[in-house]
């Protein structure tokens, strides 16, 4: 009833769906890809595996965006930055594990040899350790988000103002990473990875491992998000979205609530980025372009913000459409994407999930009204 405490995270049906998703990711997909022969109808192609793996990373980002935008009402135009930073942090490890197999056979990455650098700059220290790199994946976006968020939220920067400022931050970072002297490979970024933990990176098995990891991360993010939004903290977040001054005068300090969810959201993006980079084999400053960050918002909007399943649906719909368009009608992709932006904001404020719910409610109404007759 109205006891909306944490209690049960999902109903039995919800848990059923979660378990089904886990089986699909961990057992069915590897089976279809690795065991079922290529010619078979049920074979899952390598292309599909990497595409779905990629989109699952996007879905994590979309969920993170939903926590801060859908539930807390803060539109971030910097989530692409956090995603890219996570990717770069893990990319540093990947670059170092190339070892001497680069074009110049040097212990330094090719781009540093090209710049005539003799040693790694200080911020590359220890990145050859896998665990340290994993720590950076969490810390770099997390600390940046925390510091930025602390000052922004403390100054009560809200709404569009906040969005514009995050966009400026993203833009500044993109410019920074485009410079060769920054030490992250300039325009070209990181690429030509060879191995993770001494296993070669471009094998079907490794692809499947990354796929499964992304899937698990997505399910984990979903569970975490579900736990948060169904806790009292989640209700405070929604309250901040709807009436921040009431929250303040009720004795909650919105600063720490916003900062918590904002930092968590950035960290989730960083993790998604770290899973994404080895799957696509490249990370460059283009990932930080303001356009990417805005697009994340549209994944959430398409699926339905303020719901947990919405962002996942949205990420799959938009990115699925992209991969189809770029093959079939590359010219029209931007037209289509632009149209989605407009259509969703004008006609689908609650996204696809909201639309489905609406249709369902209508059908139920019809049934009810049909019964007495």
């Amino acid at each position: 009833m109205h006891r909306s405490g944490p209690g049960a995270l999902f109903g039995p049906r919800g848990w059923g769906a979660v378990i089904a998703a886990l089986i699909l990711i961990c057992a069915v997909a590897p089976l279809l890809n690795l065991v079922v022969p290529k010619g078979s109808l049920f074979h899952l192609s390598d292309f599909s595996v990497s595409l779905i793996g990629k989109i699952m990373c996007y879905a994590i980002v979309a969920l993170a965006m939903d926590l801060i935008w859908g539930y807390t009402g803060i539109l971030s135009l910097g989530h692409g930055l956090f995603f890219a930073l996570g990717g770069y942090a893990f990319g540093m490890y990947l670059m170092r594990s190339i070892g001497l197999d680069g074009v110049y056979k040097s212990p330094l990455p090719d781009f540093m040899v090209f710049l005539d650098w003799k040693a790694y700059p200080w911020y590359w220290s220890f990145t050859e350790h896998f665990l340290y790199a994993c720590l950076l994946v969490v810390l770099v976006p997390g600390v940046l988000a925390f510091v930025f968020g602390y000052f922004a939220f403390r100054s009560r920067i809200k709404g569009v103002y906040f969005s514009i400022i995050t966009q400026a931050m993203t833009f500044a970072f993109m410019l920074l990473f485009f410079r060769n002297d920054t030490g992250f490979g300039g325009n070209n970024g990181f690429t030509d990875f060879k191995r993770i933990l001494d296993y070669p990176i471009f094998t079907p098995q490794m692809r499947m491992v990354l796929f499964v990891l992304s899937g698990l991360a997505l399910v984990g993010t979903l569970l975490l998000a579900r736990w948060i939004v169904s806790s009292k903290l989640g209700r405070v977040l929604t309250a901040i979205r709807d009436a921040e001054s009431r929250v303040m005068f009720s004795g909650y300090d919105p600063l720490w609530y916003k900062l918590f969810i904002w930092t968590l959201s950035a960290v989730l993006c960083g993790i998604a980025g770290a899973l994404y980079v080895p799957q696509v084999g490249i990370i460059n400053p283009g990932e930080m372009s303001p356009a990417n960050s805005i697009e994340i918002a549209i994944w959430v909007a398409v699926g339905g913000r303020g719901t947990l399943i919405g962002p996942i649906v949205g990420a799959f719909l938009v990115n699925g459409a992209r991969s189809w368009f770029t093959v079939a009608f590359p010219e029209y992709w931007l037209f289509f994407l632009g149209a989605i932006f407009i259509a969703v904001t004008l006609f689908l404020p609650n996204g696809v999930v909201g639309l489905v719910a609406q249709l369902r409610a209508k059908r139920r109404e019809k049934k009810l009204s049909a019964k007495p007759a």
Partner: protein
Amino acid sequence: MTTVVEDENQGTSGPAAIGGGRVIEHDVLDVTHGPILYLDDITVSFDGFKALNNLTLTVEAGELRCIIGPNGAGKTTMMDVITGKTRPDSGTAFFGQTIDLLRMTEPQIAHAGIGRKFQKPTVFEQHTVFENLELAMKTDKRVRRSLFAKLDSAHGDLIAATLEQIKLAQAPDRPAGLLSHGQKQWLEIGMLLMQEPRLLLLDEPVAGMTDAETERTAELFNSLAGKHTLVVVEHDMDFVGAIARTVTVLHEGSVLAEGAMDVVQNDERVIEVYLGR
């Protein structure tokens, strides 16, 4: 009816009933010398326009004070200063003897025991009535506690009692956004009561209410006075007449007159201001 409500309220507001207790206590409220709110020489100006002009105002503990005044007299600005929303250019504001309001943030002031109702009813529209009250409830309001918070039965009882008090016991699961205007006003008052404040600031609490609702609100306020201190800003003179013990008239950012209702109503300057003679 009213007495029942009062009893319930008293029964549940004792320290024993509060599980978590207050954790953030900046200064202990000290009202031993009488005044609970003490504004001295407060000036607030917006681009040269003085919204408050050397305002000095004292409210005794347990008092029910009504504040009236024409538009732009500085009533809302005064509440903004007390609750930390606006920082004055000069002056001092103390809550009790020891708590300096001008150095505290809004949440800290709320914790110290000042509750505020806005002119426009402000509730969490996406949340249910129950959740609104739950969120307002006096408890540890820091992030980590909220994440692991569980509702115990004492809190549930307290919420149920308040639902009765504000006549929303029938609709705990209704989203607050679907309530009528008057119901929203009541819900907001209920949320204030859940905060267990020592001082309640109420900005036009009966605006948009039916006569019956207004009457009940007057009863509620009368019952609250004494245990709580109430400062009510209102334009509805009948309502003010029904609850007022002391009335303060604000005009152009400072106190024009203060005293019993009939004294103030017959004050020459007040008549001049209101009737524009």
